C-alpha cells in the first residue's frame, strides 16, 4: 500500500459500496462476539441456577464501588466515542482528536480501576488457586453456612474469565483508538473517509454493552452493605 492511501480500494465500485461493506463486516463480527460472550454467559447462568447461595455469597464480596465507578466511566467513554463519529462526519478535526483522546483516557481509567480491583480481590483472598481460603466461606459469624467453598471458587473463576475477556476486548479497543488518533493527526479521517471511526465506534459500544450485562450478573447478584463501599 502506498502512503497516499487511495480512499477507494481497488475492488470496490464506489465509496458507498465500500462504506456499506465495511460497516456490514463489523456487524457480522459483532455477531461472532455475541456468540463468544453468549457461550460463557450460558455457562455462568447454569451454575448460578445450580448453586444460588454460593454465587450470591461470592458476589457479595466483589467490589461494588469500583464496579459502579467503572460503569459510569465506561458509559461516558461511549458518549465521547459517539461524539468522535459525529465530529468526523461533520469534519471537525479538533473535536475529533479531543473526543478520541478522551475516550482513550476513560478506557484507560476503566482498565486502571480494574487492575486496582483485581489487586483488592487478591488481598481479600478472592482469587482461586492463588489466594483463596476455603474455611472462611463455610462459617458466617460462627454459624455453619450452607455454602461449599468449591462452588464459590467456581463463581470466582467465571468472574475472572468474564471480566478478563472483557478487559482483553478493551485493550484491543484502546489499540484501535490509538490507531485512529494517528490517522486523525495525519488528517486522514474526513467526512469522505469516516468509516474507520464508525467501525471502531461500533466495536467500542459493543464492549460497553457487554459490561452492562456483566455488572448485574457478577456484582449485583449478592447483597452489599454500605460498609462494602471502599477501594
Amino acid at each position, binding site marked *: 500500500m502506498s502512503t497516499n492511501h487511495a*480512499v*477507494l*480500494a*481497488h*475492488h*470496490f*465500485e*464506489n*465509496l*458507498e*459500496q465500500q462504506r*456499506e*461493506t465495511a460497516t*456490514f*463486516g463489523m456487524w*457480522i*463480527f459483532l*455477531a*461472532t*462476539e455475541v*456468540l*463468544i460472550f*453468549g*457461550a*460463557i454467559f450460558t*455457562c455462568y447462568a*447454569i*451454575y448460578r441456577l*445450580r*448453586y444460588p447461595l454460593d454465587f450470591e455469597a461470592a458476589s457479595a464480596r466483589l467490589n461494588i464501588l469500583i464496579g459502579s465507578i467503572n460503569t459510569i466511566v465506561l458509559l461516558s467513554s461511549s458518549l465521547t466515542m459517539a461524539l468522535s463519529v459525529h465530529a468526523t462526519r461533520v*469534519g*471537525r*478535526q*479538533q*473535536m475529533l482528536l479531543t473526543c478520541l483522546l478522551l475516550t482513550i483516557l476513560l478506557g484507560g481509567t476503566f482498565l486502571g480501576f480494574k487492575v486496582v480491583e483485581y489487586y483488592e480481590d487478591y488481598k481479600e483472598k478472592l482469587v*482461586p*488457586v492463588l489466594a483463596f481460603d476455603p474455611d472462611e466461606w463455610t462459617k458466617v459469624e460462627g454459624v455453619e453456612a450452607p455454602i*461449599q467453598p*468449591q*462452588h464459590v*471458587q*467456581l463463581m470466582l*473463576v467465571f468472574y475472572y*474469565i468474564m471480566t478478563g475477556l472483557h478487559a482483553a476486548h478493551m485493550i484491543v479497543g484502546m489499540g484501535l483508538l490509538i490507531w485512529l488518533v494517528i490517522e486523525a493527526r495525519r*488528517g*486522514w479521517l*474526513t*467526512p*469522505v*473517509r469516516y468509516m474507520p471511526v464508525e467501525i471502531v465506534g461500533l466495536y467500542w459500544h459493543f464492549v460497553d454493552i457487554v459490561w452492562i450485562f456483566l455488572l448485574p450478573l457478577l456484582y449485583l447478584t449478592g447483597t452489599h452493605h454500605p460498609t462494602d463501599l471502599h477501594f
Partner: protein
Amino acid sequence: MSSAITTGFTPQAKARPPRAPGENYLNVAFGVKSWLLTTDHKRIAILYLVTLTILFFIGGAAATVIRLNLMTPNGELVPADTYNKLFTAHGIIMVWFFLVPVVPTVLGNFLVPMMIGARDLAFPKINLLSWYVFTIGAIITLWALLAGGVDTGWTFYTPFSSKYARTNVIPTMLGIFISGFSSIMTGLNFIATMHTMRAPGLTWWRMPLFLWAHYAVSVIQVLATPVLAMALILVGVERVWGVGIFDPELGGDPVLFQHLFWFYSHPVVYIMLLPSMGITSEVITCFARKPIFGYVFIVWSSIGIAVLGFLVWAHHMFVAGQSVYSALIFSALSYLVAVPSAIKVFNWTATLYKSSIAFETPMLFAMGFVALFTMGGLTGLFLACLGVDLHVHDTYFVIAHFHFIMVGGAVMGYMAGLHFWWPKMTGRMYSDFLSKLAALIIFVGFILTFLPQFVLGYLGMPRRYHVYPPEFQVLNVMSSAGASILAVGYVLPLFYMLWSLYAGKPSGPNPWNATGLEWQTPSPPPPHNFDETPIVTTGPYEYSMEESALVH
C-alpha cells in the same frame, strides 16, 4: 479546524484497469513474495489448496496406520496408547484442518467473487490473514500431535481432557482455537461479499446455488465457531489452574462441555457438507443440460439446514445423562433435518430425470456424492432414533455413518468441484481416462471400506479400541482392503492434476459449456477477474435441451 483535504474522489463506477493480452492471475507476478503477500482471492485459494492437500495426506497417513493395525484382532502393529493418539490425530486433522476449511477456502475463495462478478472478496487483506492464521494454527497442532501426541479423541471430552490426560492437550487446542479465527474470517468475508458486491442484475434469486450454499455455511461459521473457542478456553483454564469448571468433584458439570462442544461440532458437519451440496447442484445441472429442478426449494433447504443444524446438537449425548424429555425433543429435531436434505436429493434426481446426461469426471464424482450422501443421511436417521442409538452408540455404525457423510459426501463433492473448476483455475485439462478411473476407484474403495463397518457396528464392535474379538476379523480385513483401494484413488488425482499443469491441453474459457459468470472470462482468469463488470440478465441455469445435442 482544517478538515478539508481533497481526495480526488468522484462517486462513479470506476473503470477496470487495462490488462496486457494473455495476462492472468498466475503470470501477472512471479516469486515467493508475490504469493505470500498476495491479496488476490484466486492466489489465496491456491495457497489454501496446497496447504490443505498436504494436511489431507497427513491425516490420511494416520488413517492408514489405523486400518493396518485393525487387520488383526490383537492389534500387533502399534501399542494401545499410540493407537489412541493416531485416531485422535486423524480426527483432529481431518475435521479442523481439512474438511471444515477445504471447500470454502479453496473453491469458495476462488469462485465466490467470480460468480458474483466482483474483482475480489470484500476484505482481501483479511482473506490473506485468514490463511496465515490457519497455517499457524495448523503448524502448532501438527507439532503437538507429532511431538508426543494427544489421546483424548478429537472430541476432547471432559474431565479426561481437562484433568486426567497427560498428553499435549493444551497446544493441540491452541492450534484449533487459532485456526477457528480463520474460519470466522472466511465466513465473514463471504457474507459481506454476497451482500454488497453482486454485479448489476445479479439479484439474490439469480445467485448460483453454490453461492447460496456458501452463504448458509458462512452463517454457521460465524455463529458456531466462537462457541467452540469458548469451550476450548474453559478446558484450558481448568487444565492449567485445576479449577473445576467441568470437574464434578469441584461442582462442575462434564456434560456442559459436551453441550458447548456439540453446539459447534454438530453444525460443523453442515459446514463440511453444505458447500459440497452447492457443488453438486452446479455440476449436475451442467452435465444434465437442464435448469435445476426446484431452485427456490434448494435455496431454502440450504438455509433450513443451517438453521436446524443449530438445534440438534444434543443427539450426540443421548447416553450422556441428559433428561429423557430433552433427548426426545432433540431426537424429533434431528429427524426434521432430514427434510431439507431429502429435498435436495429429490431435486437433483428430478433434474436428472429425462435429461441428456454426460458422464464427464465431475459428474461421476457428483453422482457418487448423491449416492453416498443418501446412504449416510439415511443411517443418520437410524441414529436419531432414541432406541436404536442406545444400541449402536459409540460403535462402528456411527463411524461408518459419519464417514459416509464426510468422506462419501463432503470429500466426493470437493473432488467433483475440483475437477469441475480445475480448467478454470489452471487453464489446463487433466487426463480424462485417469480422472474417470480415479472417480471409480474412490467410489468402489469407499464402499468396501465403510459398508462392512455398518455391519461391525451393528454387531457391537465399539469405536476407538485397538483390539477386537476374532470373529470381527473378516469384516475388518475387508474394510482395510477397501482403505488401500481408497488410498490409490486419492493419490491418483495428485499425479494427473500436477501432470496437467505441464502437459494438459489448454481448456479454453468454458470447457463444459457451462453457464455462470466464472465461465465468461478467460482461463486462468485475469487478475481482476473480468475485463469489464458483467451485467446479469437471467437466472443461473439457462441450459436448454436443444443445445445439448450440439455440445455432446
